[in-house]
Each structure stands twice: as structure tokens, then as C-alpha cells.
């Protein structure tokens, strides 16, 4: 039955191009002519310094005050660092690791390295040293530019395994003054080297411009290691063409200019951050603000008021949970106002945003609601100036999506991956819904393979995986299509819908389609559930592991006088189990009415005694569940789900945040739920 839904023969990519996409095509062509020679990011920087020299390029909150740098100041910072790196012996083609939270100096390091023809390799700053070794070694990193002592210590602790590494440069000098500085340098010291070079050698500016001119669009601009749900991370090589054109296309698609502002708070090693806050910012001259620290990002966002914001659904979910929790604690008047006007917003908000007809009463009510509730809420979340928000990476709950759109926030979805320099499909304005991911972006083609897998072609298609031709060949077809590994289909309006990872879609023993991620996401849409892991491929029925959401359930417990001392205790409380059970029953009821999914209702589940954690290898660093690893680790629980027992015990090793290990033991209840009869007729047909 999946085949029927997935393959939509006869729909060429041309037909899929939406009107918006076609209309931007013309502006694309004209823009491209003007930019013909600006084919690398450092060249974009030179252009920005010339064209928007006095406009802010970067802001950073430091010691409680927002510091700003204009494009011409940024170009000077980059120049000094580049000359300093050169002085330290940096050679064209060498790679440089960049590790840390979002800070201006680390972003400048990208441009400085690229100016010299080098390849920056951003890395996840919360990886432990052992995880870092692989990337540092595989990418043959010669220089490392890092944030602070923490990163320096991590790399020093494994430096004997890194024969290529020559120099390390740090931004924040706290605690580092007594370190051996023969191969360790402060960022300022390196820039000072560059400035000294300029003083003693007047030709150095011209030399650097020549170096920048040597670069071309086909050169590798950055190497991004994908976190990988399986196996070792792969180094995705993106060219300057990829980054520059993806950035330009996205700016044209959503009309971003140098007047827009965004906030950089997602990991620098992630392709989204690289394309949005680096590629797109440089391509369009956008201003990027860096928060003071990850902990202050939300307050800092309020102060900056970005016009463009990206976040995975998880972030939007957390925000909504926080608002709901606070509203429940608010006074009666506020609560009444909130619930009344949120109903108005639900009726009228999205329609007003999409410029659809709305009655005059609702318009007036919405206007009042905006003054009293929506605008203060938007301000609370730091979205007062928001023109556009994107979400991607995971499915977003329909209620969640509607909530933000009804407040008047233009939240849209996109679909992308590292190998595409992010953009594959995007939702054009006015064609937004929670269950699709939009139409192919500018200059992008999408098709569905025989097996139901989504394939694409775009200017952002990566060059290859570094030192891994086998994987490259497995992903890129000879005629230029890239396999996404996602199963999906194109709906009647030409919008792409993603169901799951192609390899994860399986079948139950009775032949019904089993899509674990689809089920997990549906359950995770409930605020009580933080994480869920579904099993069912080649089994008789579907089962799940569930993690409760400590914020939401904790608040519920407080209001219902349920006392608890730990996550484990709360998760094991019969009333909490009952709470989750009711949600699963609700979900089953909803599933029963969906032809494709009626067969995969959840029969049994266990609430896990600990939260799934990346430090224990249960989640990837981007917080995706590693299903097979979890199945192995919790084998005894999984067995209990299928052998009819009503209880299960387990003891697992956990890693604490400071690296020590311990064991957590637990006895858990297995909960069984009745399966609803499938809503007869349509399923038969779909399951033929």
C-alpha cells in the first residue's frame, strides 16, 4: 500500500515548481548575473564591506552590553586573523577545526580560513574528547580555533593522537594564562601577528586580496560532519558554490535583505547554522546576533528581536510548554483573557496571516486580542519583530504549529539536509500546513524513487564525503540525484510529505505498514511525552518506550499533589502512568481513522525509568533517538513488551555530566491498551 501512495508517476520536476518558485526564477537570473564573479564567501565579505560597510554585520552581548561590528569592521577582523594565521604557517588547502558556542570571533574564523583557501571544520562543542578525536583525525586538522579552556583541555587531552595538529587558538582566555604557549595562542595574539605583519609589510593587504581572488566557486568551502544515527560521522564537503547559491536562493525566496536580523544559537557544526547565519548572512548582508551564553539565549533574543528565526520543533514546543505552565499559574483574569482570545486566534489568526477572508467581528476581536494577549506573548518570546520563522528537522505537531501561526507569527516548514546545503523544499507564503514540508526551493528538483525514497537535485548538492567514496557513490546517483534516505510522497498540491527514514519503514507480521517515527512524533505531540521509541517491524504488534516530560508532568504533579523526588519516581507513579495511558488511548483512536496507520496502533508500552541521553549514546547529538541501540540496551524491557509480562526490571549504566559512570536500576510496569477496530472500508482498499 505504501507504493501506491508514494510513487506519483508523470509528475516531472517542472510541474512541481510552484508559482512562487517560478516567479523568483526571474529575479534569480538577474541577481546571478550581477553576482557572477562573487562566487566565494570571502568575496561576499569584500562586497558587503564595500556596499553595506556601515551597516551592522554582527552583534554579541558581552559583559551585559551588546557590542556591534559593521561589515567593514568585520572585514578588518577577518583580515587580521587571516594574516596572523598565515604568519603561523597556515597553507592553502589545510583544514581548521572550529569548536565553540556561537561567537563572532569563531564566525570570523570561517571567513579568515576561507580567505587563505583553507577548509573550516566546525565541530559540536559538547562532544567529549573521544568523540572529537575521530573528526579531528579524519579531517586532518592542522589548526584548531576554539572557544575556551574547556575545549583547549579536551583537545590537549587527546593531542598525542593528533599528529597533524600544529596550533591551537582560543578566544576566551580565562584559566589559560599558565598554559604552555608554544603551540597555543590567544585569538588577539594571532590578530596582533597579522597587524604587525601589515605594519612591517605594506604589500600584505594586496597579497591577501590576491589569495581571496584565487578562490573559486568550485573550491571546497566547509566540511560538516553529520552526527549520523548509525556508524561513524561522515564529512560532507560543501563547495563555495553550494553555500553561496543556497544562501542567495533562500534570501530571494523569502525576500531577506541587509535590513534583517537573526540570532545565532544553534550548534555551529550543524549545516542549518552554517547556511543561515553564515551563508545567508554573507550572501544578503544580514545582521547576526550572538547571545551572551547558551543559557541567556532566550533573554538575548528578546532584546534583539530578530526578524528571521529558525528553530527545531523542540524549541517551539519548549516555549509553548513554558507559556502553558505559566498561564496555569497566572491570575484568574489573565487566564480567562488568555483562553478567550486564544480561541479567537485559533479561528481567525492563521487566516488573517494567509490573507484569507475573515468576518468583521473576528477581525475586531483579533485586533483587541493582539493588543491584550498576542503582542505581549510575542514580546515574551522575543518575536516582536519576527517576519518569518522556519522549523525543520522533525515533524511539528499540528496544535503547536497552529498556536504560533494564530499569534500572527509566520512560521513555516522546510525540508533539508546537510548534503543539500539545507534547502530541498520550503513552504511558500500562503501555502503553509503542518503536515507537509513545502514545494521544491529555487532551482531545485524533487522526485520519488520506485521504493518511495525522496530524491533531489539542487545547486546545493554536496561535492562528496571526505575520504569516503563508497558512501558518496551510495548517496549520489551518476546523473546527479541525491538520495535523502527519507520516505515520502508528493500530495495533490505538489507539496512534499515526509513519513519516515526510508530504512526505518517496516511491516508488521500482519502486513500493515509500520513507520516508527510517525508514531513517535504523534505521541510526542502530547505535552506529557518528551521522547518515544516505537518497535514493531517484523513483530505482531506495535510497542513503545516512553519518556515523560519533566517540566510538563512535574507541573501537573505539583497541581495534583503528587510528590516525587526524582525523574524515576515520577515516571513510575501509577497516576502518571495512567496520564500517559490516556494519551496513548487517544492516539490509538486517532490512528484508527487513518487508512495507512490503522494497523499500527500501540498495544503495549513502558515508561522508562531514565531520560534518554546523548551522553549514554541513546540520542544523537542532535537529539534524535538511536532506535537499534536502544533496543539492544533495553533488550530485557523489549522482551517484556512482547512476552506478556506485566512488569520488567533493568539496570543500565549511565554517564553523568562530569563524565563519571554509575548504574540506574528500575522496575517498570508494562501497560497494555485495547486496539481499536480499524475504520473498516478505506483500510482494506489501502492495504490491498
Amino acid at each position, binding site marked *: 500500500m505504501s507504493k501506491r501512495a508514494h510513487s506519483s508517476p508523470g509528475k516531472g520536476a517542472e510541474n512541481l515548481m510552484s508559482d512562487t518558485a517560478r516567479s523568483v526564477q526571474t529575479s534569480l537570473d538577474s541577481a546571478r548575473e550581477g553576482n557572477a564573479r562573487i562566487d566565494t564567501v570571502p568575496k561576499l565579505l569584500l562586497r558587503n564591506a564595500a556596499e553595506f560597510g556601515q551597516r551592522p554585520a554582527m552583534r554579541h552581548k558581552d*559583559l551585559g552590553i551588546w557590542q556591534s561590528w559593521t561589515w567593514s569592521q568585520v572585514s578588518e577582523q577577518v583580515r587580521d586573523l587571516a594574516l596572523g594565521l598565515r604568519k603561523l604557517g597556515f597553507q592553502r588547502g589545510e583544514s581548521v577545526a572550529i569548536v565553540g558556542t556561537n561567537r563572532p570571533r569563531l564566525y570570523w574564523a570561517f571567513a579568515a580560513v576561507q580567505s587563505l583557501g583553507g577548509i573550516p571544520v566546525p565541530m559540536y562543542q559538547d562532544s567529549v574528547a573521544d568523540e572529537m578525536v575521530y573528526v579531528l583525525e579524519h579531517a586532518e586538522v592542522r589548526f584548531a580555533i576554539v572557544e575556551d579552556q574547556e575545549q583547549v583541555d579536551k583537545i590537549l587531552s587527546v593531542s598525542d593522537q593528533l599528529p597533524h595538529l600544529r596550533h591551537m587558538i582560543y578566544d576566551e582566555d*580565562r*584559566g589559560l594564562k*599558565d598554559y*604552555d604557549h608554544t603551540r597555543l595562542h590567544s585569538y588577539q595574539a594571532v590578530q596582533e601577528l597579522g597587524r604587525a605583519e601589515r605594519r612591517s609589510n605594506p604589500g600584505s593587504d594586496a597579497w591577501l586580496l590576491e589569495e581571496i581572488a584565487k578562490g573559486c566557486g568550485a573550491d571546497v568551502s566547509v566540511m560538516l560532519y553529520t552526527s549520523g544515527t548509525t556508524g561513524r560521522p561522515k564529512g560532507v564537503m560543501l563547495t563555495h558554490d553550494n553555500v553561496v547559491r543556497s544562501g542567495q536562493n533562500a534570501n530571494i525566496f523569502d525576500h531577506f535583505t541587509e535590513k534583517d536580523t537573526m540570532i545565532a544559537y544553534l550548534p555551529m557544526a550543524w549545516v542549518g547554522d552554517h547556511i543561515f547565519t553564515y551563508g545567508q548572512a554573507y550572501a544578503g548582508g544580514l545582521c547576526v546576533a550572538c547571545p551572551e*551564553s547558551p*543559557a*541567556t539565549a532566550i*533573554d538575548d533574543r528578546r532584546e534583539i528581536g530578530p526578524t528571521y528565526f529558525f528553530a527545531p520543533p523542540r524549541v517551539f514546543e519548549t516555549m509553548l510548554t513554558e507559556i502553558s505552565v505559566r498561564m496555569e499559574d497566572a491570575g484568574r483574569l489573565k487566564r480567562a483573557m488568555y483562553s478567550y482570545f486564544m480561541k479567537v486566534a485559533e479561528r481567525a489568526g492563521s487566516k488573517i496571516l494567509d490573507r484569507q477572508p475573515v468576518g468583521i467581528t473576528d477581525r475586531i476581536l483579533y485586533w483587541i486580542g493582539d493588543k491584550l494577549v498576542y503582542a505581549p506573548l510575542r514580546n515574551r518570546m522575543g518575536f516582536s519583530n519576527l517576519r518569518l520563522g522556519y522549523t525543520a528537522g522533525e515533524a511539528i505537531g499540528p496544535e503547536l504549529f497552529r498556536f504560533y501561526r494564530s499569534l500572527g507569527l509566520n512560521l513555516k516548514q522546510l525540508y533539508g539536509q546537510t548534503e543539500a546545503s539545507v534547502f530541498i523544499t520550503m513552504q511558500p507564503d500562503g501555502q503553509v500546513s503542518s503536515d507537509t514540508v513545502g514545494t521544491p526551493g529555487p532551482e531545485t528538483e524533487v522526485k520519488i524513487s520506485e521504493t518511495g525514497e525522496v530524491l533531489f537535485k539542487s545547486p546545493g548538492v554536496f561535492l562528496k564525503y571526505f575520504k569516503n567514496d563508497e558512501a558518496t557513490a551510495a548517496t549520489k546517483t551518476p546523473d546527479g540525484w541525491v538520495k535523502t534516505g527519507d520516505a515520502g510522497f508528493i500530495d495533490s498540491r505538489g507539496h512534499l510529505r515526509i513519513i519516515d527514514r526510508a530504512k526505518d519503514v517496516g511491516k508488521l507480521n500482519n502486513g500493515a505498514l509500520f513507520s516508527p517515527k510517525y508514531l513517535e512524533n504523534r505521541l510526542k505531540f502530547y505535552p506529557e511525552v518528551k521522547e518515544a521509541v516505537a518497535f514493531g517491524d517484523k513483530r505482531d504488534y506495535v510497542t513503545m518506550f516512553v519518556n515523560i516530560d519533566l517540566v510538563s508532568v512535574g507541573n501537573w504533579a505539583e497541581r495534583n499533589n503528587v510528590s516525587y523526588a526524582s525523574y524515576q519516581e515520577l515516571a513510575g507513579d501509577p497516576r502518571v502512568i495512567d496520564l500517559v495511558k490516556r494519551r496513548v488511548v487517544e492516539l490509538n483512536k486517532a490512528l484508527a481513522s487513518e487508512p495507512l496507520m490503522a494497523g499500527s496502533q500501540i498495544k503495549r508500552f513502558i515508561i522508562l525509568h531514565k531520560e534518554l541521553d546523548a551522553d549514554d549514546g541513546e540520542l544523537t547529538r542532535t537529539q534524535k533517538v538511536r532506535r537499534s541501540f536502544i533496543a539492544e540496551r533495553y533488550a530485557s524491557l523489549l522482551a517484556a513488551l512482547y512476552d506478556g509480562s506485566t512488569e520488567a526490571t533493568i539496570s543500565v549504566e549511565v554517564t553523568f555530566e*562530569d563524565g563519571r559512570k554509575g548504574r540506574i536500576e528500575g522496575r517498570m510496569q508494562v501497560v497494555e491498551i485495547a486496539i481499536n477496530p480499524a475504520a473498516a472500508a478505506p483500510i482494506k482498499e489501502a492495504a490491498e
Partner: protein
Amino acid sequence: MNVVADIIALDNAQPTAPRRIGEVMLKLDNVSLSFGGVKAIRDVSFDVRRGEIRAIIGPNGAGKTSMLNVINGFYHPQQGVITFKGEQRSAMRPYVAASQGIARTFQNVALFKGMSTLDNIMTGRTMKMKRGLFWQALRHGPAMAEEIEHRAVAERIIDFLEIAHIRKTPVGRLPYGLQKRVELGRALATEPELLLLDEPMAGMNLEEKQDMSRFILTVNDTFGTTIALIEHDMGVVMDLSDRIVVLDYGQKIADGTPAEVKADQKVIDAYLGVAH
């Protein structure tokens, strides 16, 4: 339990400049303090050298906090001489002590609960403010310039103690561990020469203790601040301090390096009790 072992280990791994422990900064000679018939401190003498971390330990009710109160002028001893920076003093007010460079934190956090972290730390700058109340209230001209200058100092402390995320939060809403950190921040804001810490790690979990130990070591190491602290966690005390004075029933029973104190029979008896 070696709370700061890893921090120490880290320090040892790197070639560190030898810390400068200088001349005697504070000297107490035969100090006695009693409240009515209760003798809180009996004839105690010890000194604190410039740049060192000096711990005062002892069982409950040994007179440790009284000792700190004597040092910062809150209590006035009936007998004995206190010499601070070469100057003898008898009765002095806490604000005089503060103006001479002695700052302290309290066993039970004594912050302004309704005020933000930033404002609490700014109160530590009061001593340094030159303009009068009138100009301060106007917030104009020189008073504003002064305020900006003090705010910059406060911000550096906030950055140092890693409490930027709670800068604007009323301290009453903060968990205990963070309140302790804010209190340390307020003490640091006075730019003290001698910092008195009354159980800086009481009621903290392991991670908070590690953080606090790190801050204490860095304050001592980077700014050269002399520190006298009371602490019950023996692991912390042994790892942090250069010298330890042990009190029991108001009397000094031992004084020396951590190793010496640990081996002292009288100390062992005081802590474990003796069979009579």
C-alpha cells in the same frame, strides 16, 4: 571525597607560577569573647598571611562564626589585640572593616531577596561610590559616569562567576547554590583584600561544590585575594587551604598545614569524641 582533586590535578599538570604568600596581614593575639557567662572564644591567637587560603574548622559551636564576626568588627572581643595590615584596633564597626578591605559572606545567605542578582552585586560597590545620594538619585553627569564604571565592574564579576543567565532574576527565586554564588559576587564587588567566607559550600551538591572551589581558587590565584574560610566539608578544606586553624569549645587546639592538622590527635579526638 576529593571534591577539588581534579581541579588541583589540572593545575599540577600545567607549570604554574608559585603563589606568593607574603607577610602577616591579620594577626589575632589572645582574643577572648564571651556573651554573659558563655565563653565563645577563649584566648585564641593565630594569623593570616597575605595571599593564602586559611581555613577555620571545628565541630558545631566551636566558635568559628564568632571568630569571623570578631575579624570583621561585628563583635568586639573583651580581651586581646587584633592587628590588621600593621594597625592595631580594638572596637570597630563592620563598615569600617569593609572600607579597610574586609568582605564576607554569611552562613545563612544574607542577600536582598527582592533585588536582582545585578543589583545585589552593585550594592557591593557602595563603598566605592564617591557621589552623594543626591547626585546618585539624579543619575546625571558624573554620577552616571560613575554608575557606568561600577556596572562594568559588576558585569566582570557576573561573567567570572558565570551567572549571566540570572543577571535580572530576583535572588529570592534562585536555588541556594546560586544564591551563595551571588553572595560571593557581592563580596568580590568590594574588591576586598581579605575575604571571609562562612561555609561557602554548605548545602551544595557535588557539582556546585566543584564550581565554588574553582571560583575560590581562581579568586585567590588571579586576584591574589587573601581568603579565610569556614567549611565543614573536610575534602574541600584539605584540598583548598594552605593552613588550617582548628577550634573546639572556643579554644584553639591545632594550627598548621592540612597534613599536620589531619594527623593531630587532639583534632581527631575533637571530631570523633573521646572515651572518658
